[in-house]
Structures are given as structure tokens and as C-alpha cells.
């Protein structure tokens, strides 16, 4: 009887440890502090790029060229829309600042730097999306 109870206890402990990966990770307890509740990481990058086909990213950060977020943040700061933020990351303050700017320009306040928003910010969309070479094709 005691051996059976010990086995059950062992199984219960194993069950608890097996269930841990499914639990909500908390910023307070570590884990992915940037995006604690994001689903599987491989989905972030979207569809792998193929020659001659457009890039199909799953997140706004992946759509923008390296350095584009910093340029957007600099422009937003210069215009007084953005205060403290994490440089180079499309974080909450940057997204909020973009929304404020979009509202001021009577654009849809999505918090995403779409073409119209970039043009009104004075940021070249072709450069921000990393398509400077393709811009001359038409």
C-alpha cells in the first residue's frame, strides 16, 4: 500500500513537471521577458523567402529592414511623439507614438508603420522595407 502511494506521488510529481511547459510563463519568473505569451518561435519568421517572391513575414519587425525601426524612432522623437523607448525595437512606447502620429495625420491608428505613415514621417518606405533596388523596376 505504501509502495503504491509512493508510486502515485512520483507519477503526480512527473505530471506536474510535464505540465510546466504549457503554463503561462510570467515576466516575474523569467522566461521570454519580451513576449512571455507568444506561441511557437518558428512561426515568427513567417514563410521562408524564395527567389523572385516577396518576403512573407509574420511580424512587423520582420518586415522592416535592419535599422528602419531606429530611423522611425528618431523621427518620432524629433517630432515630439516618442519619449523613453527601447532603441531598435517596435516596443509598446514606439507603437503608441506611431498611433498618436497617425491620429494627428488622420491616418488609421494601427501602430504599424505602413507606407502612408512612413511617407508622412519623411521616412522612405522603400528603404524602410529594404526594397531600394526594386523601387526602380517600374
Amino acid at each position, binding site marked *: 500500500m505504501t509502495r503504491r502511494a509512493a508510486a*502515485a506521488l512520483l507519477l503526480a510529481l512527473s*505530471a506536474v513537471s510535464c505540465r510546466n511547459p*504549457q*503554463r503561462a510563463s510570467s515576466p516575474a519568473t523569467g522566461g521570454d521577458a519580451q513576449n512571455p505569451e507568444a506561441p511557437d518561435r518558428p512561426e515568427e519568421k513567417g*514563410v521562408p523567402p524564395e527567389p523572385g517572391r*516577396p518576403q512573407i513575414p509574420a511580424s512587423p519587425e520582420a518586415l522592416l529592414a535592419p535599422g528602419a525601426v531606429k530611423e522611425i524612432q528618431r523621427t518620432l522623437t524629433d517630432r515630439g511623439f516618442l519619449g523613453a523607448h527601447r532603441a531598435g525595437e517596435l516596443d509598446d512606447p514606439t507603437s503608441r507614438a506611431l498611433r498618436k502620429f497617425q491620429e494627428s495625420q488622420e491616418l488609421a491608428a494601427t501602430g504599424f508603420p505602413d507606407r502612408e505613415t512612413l511617407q508622412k514621417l519623411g521616412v522612405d518606405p522603400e528603404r524602410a522595407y529594404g526594397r531600394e533596388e*526594386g523601387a526602380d*523596376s517600374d
Partner: protein
Amino acid sequence: MRRGTKRLLVTLAVLALLLVAARVALDPLVTWRTRKILAGMDGMRGRFQDVQVSVHDLSYSIVGLRIEKLGAGGVALPYFQVRKARFGLYFKELVRGNVVAVIDLDKPKLTLVSAKNQQDQGVEEAPEVGWGLEALAPFRMDRVQVKDGELLWVDASEPERPELWLHRIEGTLENFATRKALSKNEPTVLAARGVLQRSGAVSVFATADPLAKKLTFAGQGRLEGLKLPELATLVTSKADVAPDKGELDMSIRFRAEDGRLSGGVRPILKDAGTKPAKDGIGPKLKSLLADASLEIFSDDVPGRDAVATTIPIQGTVHDPKAQAVPTILGILRNAFVRGLQDGLSGLPPPKAKEKEGVMKQARRALSPKRDAQPRAQPGEK
């Protein structure tokens, strides 16, 4: 010389007169065309307050557009309305020989009613509005902008008529399969935010390949801080319990490559609790069991009782006529429904037919199968 000057002046005067006449005739002409298109919408009735044409910025606007669905017995149901829909052309692209247009929708509202009767409105009809709007403009759309939009979904198949209300929608859709987008090899980009019920902050981002033979897209969505009591009517219509406290967060990532769909939904319930939705011992027992199961599955972060799970998204999109944007919106809707169902799947937990031993309960808890959760045990006789 004098005769030549006179001829030139007459020609210029005639041209000016023609231009003025054309401008004067433009408004009635566009009004007539708008009425004709609205009258041609099958099973629907459309009306509007005014049509404005601007030669200055190459645009025309419909003010106070209202489209109603004609139900059985001629009953008109609200379907789509917009305070102002503006259709404009990009002058720069026109100079380059590309007819590229933009739609701005100010305060649009779409009402979808799901009913048992297949003839009634359903979510699958949503693209009709898009096609109808596109028919109003004689050119291809490259950018759609929505400001302060609303989407109301009513489940008329249940007597409680539960509603899901997505409002304060701000969204953009850029780079359709126009020559401009194709020549630049750009993806179609969808970005939107809104509020679900009264408290849930929703954000969505997705991109799609407009050239792919089979649907190819990727994206992510997020719902934060939705207070569960706001879903009480919806949950009560499906179960005898109603959430009386707690919050729901949800993340989704998805991608479809050449029609193959994959991704995941992660609903997280925080501090959730339930109450019986109806009188009687049955609903009270279910509520107690639900609270017990939420307690069992909650994590141990101090000050928070969160229950999380990850639901895989898998499948294929075979329909060759399927379009990326309606498919993405369908995936998001299904993900929310599945996430909500799975998040609340312990309401109530399945009940074992007969009392199970500790070993059997532990085996269920260890099983990798999602439906093998521990079961509520029948009481002692």
C-alpha cells in the same frame, strides 16, 4: 492672324464650356451609377445621403451609405453602413500609367448574424461587402483604410442571441495584386487594432504573397485583458455556467505556405471563476467543478492564477478561389472561438463514469493527448 486668334479663343471657350458642362454632369452621373450598383446587389438594399466628386484630388465619396440585407418577408436587417467611403486615385501612379486607388472608410459598421437557416446572414458573406465596395470603384484597389470601424456578430441560433462586438477598429490593407505592387515584388500587408467587447485590446498583423498560386501568408494576432464576464452571454448559451471574474489573453501565430496551414493559439485565463447561469443543483455543481478544474490547472505565480495551453493550427486551404484576406480573417475568428473553447474547456471538466483510482488519474494527467485531462470524480455513495 486676327482670324487665327479669334478661332483659338472660340476653341478655348468651347473647351471651357465643355469642361464646365462635364463637371456639372459628373455629380448626377456618379450618383446614378452608385444607385445602379447598389440596386444590383442580390438580396440587399442600399441607400446613401450624398455623393461628392472631387476633380482636385481625383476622388469621389459616398456619404451615409447604408446596405441592408433583405430577410424573409421583406424584413430589412442592418448589414453594412459607413459614414463616409472615399475612393481616390494616386496621382503619382497615374502619371506613371498605373491606375492605383485607395479606399478610406470612416466609421464603417458590419453586422453579421449567424442563424440556423442557411439563407440568413453568415460570416462567410463578409467578403461580399468588399466586392460590393470594389464594384463601386472602376479600378483596382491598392490600399484600404478603416477608421473607427465596428464589427458586430450575433449568434441568432441561440435563444440568448449572444454577441461579439469588435469596435474602434483602425486598420490598413496595402499592396493588393495591382501592377504597382507586383512590379515591386511586395507582399500584401494587413495591420489592424480594435477593442473586443468593452475591455479586450486586439491587434493583428499579416502579410500575404499576392502572386502565389496557392494561398501563402503569415501573421500574428493578440488579445489582451478581455474581462471574462463580458463573455457571459456567449458562454451561458453553450453551457450552464457563466464566467463571473477573470481575464482572457490570447496569442496566435499562423502561416500558410502553398495552401498548407500551420501555427498555434495560446489562450491564457487569469483569475478565472464561474457562477451558475441557471437555477438548480446541476448548474451549481457544474460551476463548482469548473472552479475546481481552473484551480487544478492554474500556475503558481503569486497574485495570479493563470491557465494556459497551446492549440496547434493545422490544415490545408484547397479552394483555388480562396482569397488571402477573408481566409486570414476566418482563421482569426476560428482561433478566437477555439482558444475560448479550449481556455474554458474545464467548464465543467468531463466527469468520470465511475470513481477512478489515483494511478488512473495520474495516467490521464501524464498523457500527451489533449483530451486526456483529469476527470471530475463522482461523489462517494
